[in-house]
Each structure stands twice: as structure tokens, then as C-alpha cells.
């Protein structure tokens, strides 16, 4: 294992580290796709290729005591919040060594110790939980913030509106981080939202909103830090809109019949957050290749770990249905 096996949120803007972390996530997702196609990973998987900068930039700004809730597209969030690549990969393989002991799977990654309260596979389903976590921090006067990741699709759900309303009403320390990747599965934003500027959603509740280029990891870091400071100060929640791109199908196997091929290829060529940062850092090719290799090693180790993992014993089936 290398030190990269755990992404430790830095709370400082270190673009070099951001690049490494995004590469680990990218290689992880690519490997997940291959392992899924080979039939090694059961179920179905949603990849965050293209959205790495949002996960890495936002989680880097969180303090270790802050908590997140995530979505069905959860691998990047879990890794960026500090879960080990081994534990996340083992969970995808349904192994006992997985971060949810093989009970959760790709869409239900948990790491409570590292502040990941889990991912809901009901779109927008965790927004109430993030609101409640923020309520607990507020009632206990703890300087902690709950950050909820969700997509543009979730902003049409009832729970989104109820949670935003309640959080603003009670001035809770929450950050609602909307990753607008422009697709609610196969439905483009224009077909599910009457407004194209999603910050208008926040205006209805009088909530402070920020908007950021989700392909610029440093900008995401700065915007999240600003949102967190606002929420932590007791001034209430923040709606943080990250404009990003899904540079992969909805899930592995999705043929994207609904998506214009030229647009897709162009976006992949021009909106890759890793390429953008690499360019900005003017990284020599050899150095970048070295970083890629390191990331590949971390992921290869995670795959080996997952393959060697223990299948949960059916005799333990009923464990944890209830707390004792």
C-alpha cells in the first residue's frame, strides 16, 4: 500500500495532491468498469468519471469531523472523504472487508468513522438525513457541518424542497452541494427543470447560494471552504452549485442513445478536470505518467484485496437488522 491508498482530506489547497487524488478516483472508476464488465462485480455501478474535481475539492475543504451524505454515484465521494480504496473496492465485490461489510454495495458506501453517513440510492433520499445531522450539530452547539452531495435530478424531488426549507428556517449548518452534471439518468436538465439556473431553487427559501466551475478542483475547494465557513458561523445553510459533466454513461452498460455522440466526445475532450489541472500545473509528461502509475498501483492493490476478500457467511444474514 502507498500513502495514496487513503485520501486524507487536507483542508489546504494543494493542487499537486488534488491531481493525485483525482487520478486515484479516475483509475478506480476505470478499473471498476472493467471488473464489472468481466462479471467480477455484481449488481450495477454508476461511475463518477468527469466529476472527480467536485468530490476531491469539496472533501478537501471539510474538517475531519464534518459529515457527508452521498448518492448512487458514490465511489468518488467515499474515496475523497477518506475511505480506503481497498475497503471501497471490497464493498463493490460484496466482501466482508468492504466498507459496509458487503451489506451495502456500490450504491450504499458507509464509513461513519470518517464522516461518511452513507449514500442513498433513492434520488435525493439522504437530504433529510443531512438536515438532521446538521440539526444535531446545531442543538449540541458543535462546530460541525453536514454536506449533502446530490445531482440536478434531485432538485425536482419533494424531499429536496422540504429539506432546503427546513434547513434555512432553522439556520442549520448544512451545505447542499448540487452536482449539476446535466443529466438525470437519461433526461436532460431542460426536460426536468423549468429553470436552467439552479441557484434560483435556493432563492425561493432565501438561502445563500454559490456557484462554481465543477471541473476546476481548486475553485471547488475555495467555494466549499467559503460555504462551510458561512454554515459553521451559524448564518445558515448554503446551496453550492457545481457545474460539472458526466463524462461516462449513467451506469456501466448504458448505451446513451439519448445523448448526442459529437457533444459527448467534445465534452470528454474539453471538460476533463484532470486534464485541466495537468495543463494548469504544466506537468511534464513523465511526471504525469508516474502519477498515473502510482494511482494504478493503488487500484490494482485494491482489486487484489477485494478478490481475496471473504464472502459474508449466510449464517450472519440476520445480523444488524436490528441494533441490540
Amino acid at each position, binding site marked *: 500500500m502507498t500513502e495514496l491508498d487513503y485520501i486524507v482530506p487536507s483542508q489546504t489547497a494543494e493542487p499537486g495532491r488534488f491531481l493525485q487524488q483525482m487520478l486515484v478516483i479516475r483509475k478506480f472508476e476505470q478499473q471498476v468498469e472493467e471488473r464489472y464488465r468481466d462479471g467480477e462485480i455484481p449488481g450495477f455501478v454508476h461511475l463518477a468519471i468527469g466529476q472527480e474535481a467536485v468530490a476531491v475539492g469539496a472533501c478537501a475543504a471539510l474538517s475531519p469531523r464534518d*459529515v457527508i451524505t452521498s448518492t448512487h454515484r458514490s465511489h468518488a465521494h467515499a474515496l475523497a472523504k477518506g475511505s480506503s480504496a481497498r475497503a471501497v473496492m471490497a464493498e463493490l465485490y460484496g466482501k466482508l472487508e*468492504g*466498507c*459496509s*461489510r*458487503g*451489506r*451495502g454495495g456500490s450504491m*450504499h458506501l*458507509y*464509513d*461513519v*468513522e470518517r464522516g461518511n*453517513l*452513507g449514500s*442513498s440510492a*433513492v434520488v435525493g*433520499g*439522504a*437530504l*433529510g*438525513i*443531512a*438536515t*438532521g*445531522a*446538521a*440539526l*444535531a*450539530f446545531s*442543538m*449540541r452547539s458543535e462546530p460541525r457541518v*453536514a454536506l449533502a452531495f446530490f445531482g440536478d435530478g434531485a432538485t425536482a424531488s*419533494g*424531499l429536496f424542497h*422540504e*429539506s432546503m*426549507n*427546513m434547513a434555512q*428556517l*432553522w439556520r442549520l449548518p448544512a451545505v447542499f452541494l448540487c452536482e449539476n452534471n446535466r443529466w438525470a439518468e437519461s433526461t436532460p436538465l431542460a426536460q426536468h427543470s423549468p429553470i436552467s439556473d439552479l441557484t434560483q431553487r435556493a432563492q425561493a427559501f432565501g438561502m445563500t447560494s454559490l456557484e462554481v466551475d465543477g471541473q476546476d478542483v481548486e475553485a471547488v475547494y475555495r467555494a466549499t471552504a467559503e460555504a462551510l465557513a458561512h454554515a459553521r458561523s451559524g448564518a445558515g445553510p448554503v446551496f453550492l452549485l457545481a457545474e460539472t459533466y458526466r463524462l461516462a454513461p449513467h451506469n456501466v452498460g448504458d448505451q446513451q442513445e439519448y445523448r448526442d455522440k459529437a457533444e459527448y466526445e467534445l465534452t470528454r475532450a474539453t471538460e476533463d478536470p484532470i486534464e485541466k489541472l495537468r495543463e494548469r500545473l504544466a506537468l511534464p509528461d513523465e511526471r504525469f505518467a508516474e502519477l498515473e502509475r502510482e494511482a494504478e498501483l493503488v487500484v490494482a492493490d485494491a482489486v487484489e484485496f477485494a478478490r481475496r476478500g471473504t464472502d459474508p457467511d449466510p449464517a450472519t444474514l440476520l*445480523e*444488524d*437488522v*436490528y*441494533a*441490540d
Partner: protein
Amino acid sequence: MPTSTTTRFSYREAVRDAMSQAMRRDADVFIMGQDIAEHGGSQKVTLGMLEEFGPGRVRNSPISEMALTGAGIGAAMLGMRPIVEIMYEDFLTLAMEQLVNHAAKERYMSGGQLKVPLTVRTQGGAGWSSGAQHGQQTEGWFVGVPGLKVVYPSTPRDARGLLWSSIYDDNCVVFFEHVQLYNQREELPEEIEPIPLGKARIVRIGTDVTVVAIGPLVHEALAAAEQAEQEGISVEVIDPRTLQPLDEEAILESVRKTSRCVVAHEAVRRMGIGAEMAAVIQEKAFDWLDAPIERVGARFTPLPFAPGLEQASVPRREQVYAAIKRTVGSR
């Protein structure tokens, strides 16, 4: 030993007392719901609690059952012990996604990392022409969800002791109160007597027929038992009090003694909790049964408004008495 002083508690006061005592003892316990602060809730259960505990812990919420429940789950995951009041159990439908997909599953999906010590209190019941959306009984929808516990007390003592245990249980408990029971009264000591979840109570001892009844039907069953007694039929009445987990042993022990059983609830008969009880009894006490198990429950209709129709829809003592008679046959 000196006996502690007792006070006459209504069912409503008993529920309030359990919450207030827990909130006095423990800063992590709080309540939120619609109109529960100054107004004291639609049934006045929380009346006076705002004055004692303040608006931070007796939280009036917007009309957002889903977020209310979700926020309860989130706060519970962080170690608090929230009580969420859902004004009518009909409105549990609005919270159902959060209860079924989150409260019930977070512990399991996280491989045991999380607990959700949330209590969701609600009330309902027929008998006052509330119409189809303010009086139905929905406990049967929740007993089939692995990860949830379901409690339904029928007396002030049980309400107080079971609510206390629900608040301190590390799982999500859906706690049903019945509107017609709020004025039931009982002498109780000032000290809380916690009642463990999953333990039935034998309400009346008898030898010929066992009636397993919940909520208001416990009282209807007692009345029916008195009537049957006049004819020499000895009726045992059991109140499971907790529907999930169900105290199967207590029910089976009684049925093995009496060989006859009636199950009774106010919710619709079809697919009700009584059907599950009947299934358990026939599986585990088949060779002790001397008559088919009788089920008593509401007719399969939405709850009607007109008083005459409403009465025709929900079961009361007459239906329980008739079922007892059928099990005994021409003995």
C-alpha cells in the same frame, strides 16, 4: 417498603409524561412535529411542554413529513434520540419512503456502523367521523418492514412504559396511539415503569378462548369477554402491545391452553396484523386448535364519513363476541 404516591394519569398524560421525563433526564431527547408547540399538537399530547423545554427541544415543524422524518433519522444517526410526531397516521404515507428506505435499513446497509434511535409517534382511529384520511389504522403497513419496530399500547400504563422503552431503544420505533383512548385513566406511580418491547400482557385470564387484541379492541374484547362469561364461556384476553417484534410465545402458550383463538384489530381485516398472528398460531400450535382461528377487523373499505356507515365499518365488542361464540360452536 413505602409505596410511592400514585396519580391518576390519562393515556394522553401518560404519553406526555414519558416524553417529559426522558427530556428532563437526557438532553439528547427532543420532539418535533406539526403544531406541537403552543398548540400542543392536534390531540394536545404535547400541551405545556414548550413552556418547560423551550422551542429548541419542542420544535414546531413545517408541513414536511418527509423532511421531518429524515431529519429525525439524521439526528438519531448522530446519537440523539428524537421523537417525531406525525399528526395523523394517515400522514405516515408521506414519511414512508424515509421510514422504509432509510430508518429501517441504515443499520443493515452500513454493516452495523449506524443506529437509528428514532421514535415516530402518531395517532388515529375511527369513531368520530374523521373521514377517510384522518382515521384509518395503518400499523399493518409497518410490521412487514425488517428493521422497524412497531408498538401499539392500549392503556396509560403501557403507553408510558412502552414509550419510554421506545425512546431508549436503539432502533426506529413507530409508536401508534389511538384517538379514542386518550381519555382512558389509570392510577400510576410517579416513577416511570419501563416496559420491555416485545412482551405481551395477559389482560384477562380464561380457559376456553384466547382473544388477541390490540389498541381499542383490547377494551372491546374485555367487554365481549364479560358478556361471554354470563354464558359460561371463559375468555382469555392478550394484548401483544408490541407488534414487531411479536411475543409469539405468550400467544402460543395461551392458545395451547384454550385451543381456540380470535384475533382482533380496528385496521382492515384483510392483510392485517391479525392474519400474521393467525398464520403463526396455525404453524406452531396446529395440533392444539379445536376450531378455526377467527379474525375480527374493519371491513375492506376506506373509512366512511357518515356515522352510521363508519359504525358499520369498524369492529366493536359485538363482532368480537360473535367471533368468540363461533369458535366455541354448539359446545
